[in-house]
């Protein structure tokens, strides 16, 4: 597994360390979806600060991770998108609409805490 996934309380933190191929991203998706159940996680944070490119495939995979985790009962936050990556994503017409994002790990954890406190609707 190319991306280490740490468990902290009821959170899973996946910290991407290097450029990822499509297969690596797909593997991350399978692994996180499996671990949400195994570790009974309520939140997932994916740190992407080291990614120098987030293209259409990466965007689609990140989005599907968040949707799958949601179906398994966990909220996902993508943290650390670099400014130049954000710029390219917008130019390319890619969006993570409907997916939680935060500036960094601390903000991501804070956001998950707030999400868990929301009243059930």
């Amino acid at each position, binding site marked *: 597994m190319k991306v280490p996934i740490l468990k902290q309380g009821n959170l899973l933190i996946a910290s991407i360390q290097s450029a990822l191929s499509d297969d690596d991203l797909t593997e991350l998706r399978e692994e996180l979806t499996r671990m949400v159940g195994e570790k009974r996680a309520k939140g997932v944070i994916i740190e992407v600060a080291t990614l120098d490119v987030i*293209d*259409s495939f990466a965007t689609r995979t990140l989005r599907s991770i968040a949707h799958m985790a949601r179906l398994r009962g966990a909220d996902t936050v993508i943290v650390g998108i670099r400014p130049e990556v954000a710029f390219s994503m917008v130019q390319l017409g890619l969006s993570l609409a409907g997916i939680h994002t935060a500036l960094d790990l601390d903000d991501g954890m804070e956001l998950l805490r707030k999400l868990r406190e929301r009243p059930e609707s």
Partner: protein
Amino acid sequence: MKEQLRSETRTLIREEPDIVSARSAVRDLAAQLGFSNVYLTMIATAVSELARNILQYARTGEIRARVVQNCSVPGIEIVASDSGPGIADVEKALQDGYSTSGGLGIGLPGVRRLMDEFEISAASGTTVTARLWQRKR
């Protein structure tokens, strides 16, 4: 000894990890021209989409990049070529949201938005040529 500057790169696209190799090769070449991080990321993202198109539609092909000049303004030219089935309707392929493969349909129109110049020839196989010029500082 002075490190020799490379003026072109060529990456064969045969399998999926080649996408990552192609974008880092082109990015390194563009970095020599002094493109800022924002532009390097745009170039790498464009290469990523073009390389994935090759794998998806033609299975094999190549990405070449070279340094070009226009009235002493340097730029980078990316050529993505394959001998696959070509594109039946180029106009349509350049529309946002159009895809014949079940993808996002963002590839070609997206690449066109990222780069300054964009040409496509899809007569036999597909060749996409895209250029980005160095901005004056």
